[in-house]
């Protein structure tokens, strides 16, 4: 099965407030018309199970909440190689998205390039909404995603319109 070359993957739990930022960004991006070489994917609470979604892509852009000890709303951009896999999750043995990328490598199907766009959460607790400091970052995050898509050598059609 031939895969769409560029994957924009929002992960996180949208019933845990700011943890769900990745999913909220995907929902927002779905309102716009995008070129057909880009796939938007709500990865939800899966980590490890996303292996079959990320493998074989030219570029994967992951959006997730990241705890990097900076003020809430801080945006980060890094690649999985920047952080050690075994240190990436709260617990030593959790198999999340970083580990899934490692396993893709093990299968020799790692994406050509992976970029993680992270947002420092303000509040992670039961709830379906984002805090305003994180929600206000959505347009900037989408800009960052679009920049990454541009870098991948794709011309974004100029007629992106709000439906």
């Amino acid at each position, binding site marked *: 099965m031939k895969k769409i070359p560029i994957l924009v993957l929002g*992960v*996180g*739990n*949208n*019933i*845990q407030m700011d*943890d769900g930022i990745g999913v909220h960004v995907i929902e927002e991006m779905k309102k716009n018309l995008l070129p057909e070489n880009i796939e938007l994917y*709500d*990865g*939800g*609470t*899966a*980590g*490890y*199970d996303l*292996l*079959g979604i990320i*493998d074989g892509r030219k570029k994967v852009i992951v959006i*997730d*909440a*990241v*705890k*990097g000890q*900076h003020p809430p709303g*801080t*945006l*980060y*951009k*890094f690649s999985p190689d*920047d*952080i*050690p*896999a*075994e*240190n*990436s*999750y*709260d*617990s*030593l*043995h*959790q*198999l*999340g*998205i*970083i*580990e899934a990328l*490692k*396993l893709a*490598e*093990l*299968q020799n199907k790692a994406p050509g390039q992976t970029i*993680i*766009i*992270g947002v420092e*959460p303000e509040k*992670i607790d*039961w709830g*379906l909404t984002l805090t305003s400091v994180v929600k206000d970052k959505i347009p900037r995050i989408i800009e*960052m995603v679009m920049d990454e898509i541009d870098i991948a050598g794709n011309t974004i059609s100029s007629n992106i319109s709000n439906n």
Partner: protein
Amino acid sequence: MGKIVIDPITRIEGHLKIEATVEGGIVKEAKSSGMLFRGFEQILKNRDPRDAQRITQRICGVCPTAHSTASTLNLDSAFGIADKIPDNGRILRNLIFGSNFLQSHILHFYHLTALDYVDVTAVADYSGKDPHLLQVKKFIEGGNLAPFVPRYEGDYRLPKEVNVSATRNYVEALDIRTKCHELLAIFGGHMPHNMSMMPGGVTENVSVDKIADFRWKLEKIRHFIDNVYIPDVLAVAGVYSDYFSIGSGVGNFLAYGVFEMDSEPDLTKRKRFFPQGLVSAKDLKPGKFDPAKITEHVKHSWFKSGSDLHPSVGETEAQPGKKGAYSWIKSPRYDGKVYEVGPLARQINAYVRGYEPTVSLVNSVLKKFKASPKALVSTLGRHAARAIEAKIVADAMAKWAMELKPGEPVHADFEIPESGEGMGLTGAPRGALGHWITIKNHKIDNYQAVVPTTWNGGPRDDKGVPGPFEQALEGTRVRDEKNPFELVRIVRSFDPCLACAIHVVNPKGTEMGKFVVS
């Protein structure tokens, strides 16, 4: 006297801590603690009842399909349509859930537990041409040992060639799991968090093309189960056969039943592919199950809610720091007693009721190891039951897919009642899963879920009786306190999975300042 603390013990999402007090090499006391508050029930209150089906799928990154199934059965019953589900809808739900079973059991054996038995370093001097093994070798040579470490040392017993082939199969199992997800998506629409299951049936229609696609993908998975997964479990059992008598535990087994075979509205009477019921290891006789006898104790849990309540009137009020408490998990009890849930509980229930093909498959395994049925009640028994279950489910799915009728309805219409109560009982890959709902003014008034790892991993109950993990650990001989292989092997045989609520990336020890974007 020493204290062994294993935190976390799960190789997958979750925060489970095991504390074992060892005296003279024997575990004298074991405490199982869930370290994360799971209170999603609170956000369901006053919402549209249909939201429960979508929201409960999000509480877990591993078993969304199981929650999707339990909440759907729960809403079928609350909406009074449990007897109206068309055959296509019933079968498609079984196929969606079955796909999830297959990926989950394969994941558990290869990626969550095999590394306790299989020595990956055997691949270090591999000189053959298998691409999977060459890639693993490259990982090891690069000092790139995650996800193979951390691990304990000192008890890897498989012959080198089996270590090598099982490592190869670890990588192949990743491909097979992806196929399971693709299988699920044919009728489930999306993975994770399928979009298709709903009260009344499913949203995806049946076509000849989809059936053919389903059968084609399923055949590859069946081939893997029969020729790779089951032989690997048997190979492990062959050299670690002492684990047929280690980690036996409580010996009471509870199964709610799973995979719907008819549309009887009463879930205690409905025909399920794997039966509902109770079994005690003492006499191996089938016992009848009554859902009214389920309660949850909270004496040793960080909750101020009332204790010994039925889940339909359950409460979820946190009290961190509560005296005498040591877990965020409650202690579910049946008729006041401790019960183990999971594939072993399901297969023992099927076995004592004479269900085929469980009986033949279990007997062939027992014959191979010259063991009596009581050997099933053990660490290896849990692995064997899981592998047997994967085969039975995969074989049945091939049959079920051919019972679908293209063009015929897949769901029944419904209305949300002004008030009502519902109960959804099913078997998740990890064991008995129940959802309960109370509806008032067309909204959710109360929602409670009792999940498998609550049954298995809960703390001592109000009477001080330890939970299933705790009982399985207590009395175990630990050869080397620094490498407590025995303890992780026992707990992982239950396939623990907990409170998978938070998925934030937390790059510990990495200075993130250089990655900040303005």
